[in-house]
């Protein structure tokens, strides 16, 4: 396809982590055979669902908050050019420097140049989906710059020479014994008497990274939110590694997708209530850092903001698909997805796994490069109910299935997909029955309201393992 200047463009091939090496069914095959992985995943997703349901039920206005969040995001997309220009102006006025990156290659080049200009050959990083998407660590490494991931889970992934498998808990596929082994093998200076007690493992990471935090002069982050009318950036986190990266170095480089901008400071009152409860199941995450440009004498004295397109304009150009850009990366849709729970994050082949990944990855790359992902779903609808910004993921999946190319080679996949798609109708009936039962007074076993609607559904239609496997096997 020829790309015309100024026309929306998908994310380029050959760089970044949006495309898997295998189709979803082929990649999921291994995961389905790994019972340890499935146990880890089930434990993790069940735990988060329970916590999240509890704190969401504490808010009497969860639904109005979702409505507001969804409407704000719709407004953001409709006014994106104006908001981005306003953001640039405010960040610049506050002492920051704004860069525009059309795709992953350009973003990687900009960040590499900025790091080189500082003279440092090492950067500390706080977990960021955008920088994983563009393959920034690989690009920096090629330029001779070491990128140290400082989030505990990212550190586990990095030391394990592994790939993240969940947006929020990237090492969700590792249990404590595996983590201990990775630390013993890969962590310089680790205590050989290390046990697999989680506090002991966390303390080992604290010791290992402390010196690095204090001696590295450049940090790279993503951003959860950027406020157009004030130029404020916000990073939401738990461990304090984010605060370290955002406070200690001389230079801070933040890479952010263009869809992350919010119009006003007041809008944060919505998203700071939605995100932690949907994401980690906390009333508030332990730490949130907000900064506006540069503050003399406090924190980084050089601040660069890199605004990234990398396929987002292509997503935006589809009126029926653009709501995928509302995503605030909370990962609630992963935690309720029966397919994710069985297949795991790696099967999606992209940094964006689970239901939102099944939508967003093909949209960002162009459907031809991720044609099997829109089929990585039973269309049960749990993701829609769980999404704090009300993205109708099932409808987006159906829309993308219609867009997907249907060449000869794909036909088998389509047939197989069609077979599993018969099942959800059965499950949907079961869910409807569950809902009726709940209305009649028999509470769902899972979460308290308002999430009991889908947990009741989830408990009933447990994807029959055999059928699911049959389907993969028949591929």
């Amino acid at each position, binding site marked *: 396809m020829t790309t015309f200047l100024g026309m929306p463009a998908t994310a380029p091939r050959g760089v970044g982590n949006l495309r898997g090496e295998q189709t979803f069914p082929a990649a999921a095959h291994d995961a389905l055979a790994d019972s340890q992985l499935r146990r880890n995943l089930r434990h993790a997703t069940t735990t988060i669902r329970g916590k999240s349901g509890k704190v969401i039920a504490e808010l009497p*206005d969860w639904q109005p908050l979702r409505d507001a969040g969804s409407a704000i995001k719709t407004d953001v997309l*409709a006014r994106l*050019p104006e908001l981005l220009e306003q953001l640039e102006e405010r960040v610049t006025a506050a002492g920051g420097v704004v860069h525009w990156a059309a795709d992953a290659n350009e973003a990687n080049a900009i960040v590499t140049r900025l790091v080189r200009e500082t003279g440092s050959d090492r950067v500390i990083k706080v977990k960021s989906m955008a920088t994983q998407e563009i393959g920034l660590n690989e690009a920096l490494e090629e330029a001779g710059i070491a990128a140290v991931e400082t989030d*505990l889970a990212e550190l586990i992934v990095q030391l394990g020479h592994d790939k993240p498998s969940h947006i929020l808990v990237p090492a969700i596929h590792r249990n404590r014994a595996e983590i201990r082994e990775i630390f013993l093998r890969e962590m310089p200076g680790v205590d050989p008497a290390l046990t697999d007690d989680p506090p002991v493992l966390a303390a080992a990471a604290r010791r290992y990274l402390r010196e690095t935090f204090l001696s590295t002069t450049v940090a790279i982050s993503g951003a959860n939110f950027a406020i157009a009318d004030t130029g404020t950036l916000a990073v939401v986190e738990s461990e304090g590694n984010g*605060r370290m990266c955002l406070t200690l170095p001389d230079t801070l480089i933040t890479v952010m997708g263009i869809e992350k901008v919010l119009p006003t400071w007041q809008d944060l009152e919505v998203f700071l209530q939605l995100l932690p409860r949907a994401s980690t199941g906390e*009333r508030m995450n332990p730490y949130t850092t907000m900064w506006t440009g540069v503050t003399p004498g406090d924190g980084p004295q050089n601040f660069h903001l890199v605004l990234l397109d990398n396929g987002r304009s292509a997503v935006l150009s589809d009126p029926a698909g653009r709501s995928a850009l509302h995503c605030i990366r909370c990962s609630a849709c992963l935690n309720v997805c029966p397919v994710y729970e069985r297949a795991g994050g790696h099967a999606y082949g992209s940094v964006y796994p689970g239901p939102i990944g099944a939508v967003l990855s093909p949209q960002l790359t162009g459907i031809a490069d991720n044609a099997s992902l829109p089929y990585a779903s039973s269309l049960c609808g749990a993701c829609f109910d769980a999404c704090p910004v009300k993205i109708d993921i099932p409808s987006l999946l159906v829309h993308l299935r219609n867009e997907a190319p249907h060449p000869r080679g794909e036909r088998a996949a389509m047939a197989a997909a069609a077979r599993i798609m018969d099942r959800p109708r059965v499950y949907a009936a079961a869910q409807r029955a569950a809902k009726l039962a709940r209305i009649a007074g028999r509470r769902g076993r899972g979460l308290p309201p308002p999430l009991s609607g889908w947990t009741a559904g989830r408990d009933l239609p447990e994807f029959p393992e055999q059928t699911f496997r049959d389907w993969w096997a028949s591929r």
Partner: protein
Amino acid sequence: MSSKDLILGRVRAALRDAPVAPPVPREYRPAGRPASLDVLVDRLLDYKAEVHRVRQDEIATTVAGLVDGAVIVPPGLPRAWRPAAAVPDDGLAPDRIAAAAAVLTAAAVAVAETGTIVLDAAPDQGRRIITLLPDVHFCVLRPAQVVAAVPDAVARLDPRRPLTWISGPSATSDIELNRVEGVHGPRHLHVLLLDE
């Protein structure tokens, strides 16, 4: 063409259908409800912070009774609050701050419903680094600083200041979803809620 022009051109082309967003419905609970100190204390304890109800003249002794060693204080912290071991931050080196036993600061706002304390780097709170490196953070809170919910805090805060929202001590759930308090930030958070 600059990349900025390229991206904005793409975005404008993507919006050629000229979508119009409906007004944002803000039917959620607005700012302005009364705040409950009991709710705040309950939420702080739930997230493993420790809470002490003290008078102004008890701050120094409370702190001194809980830690041994240097206590970093921001330059604008009221003198009457400072323990004998107070070390005012006059641009201390990071090593020095990291080696201290604790840090003692005021706060800007606290959110009862979420158990959150917000620091805004005012003179009685200091540079962000001083509340990050020591292992223990003592934070003095006046009842008038406590608001009901997130919208109240957002309305009170000034976005031009660097803000740190703190809900309990640093924590991770990255290992089998077990919550472990204390990874990189302070492992202990003591809130000194003033009796006024």
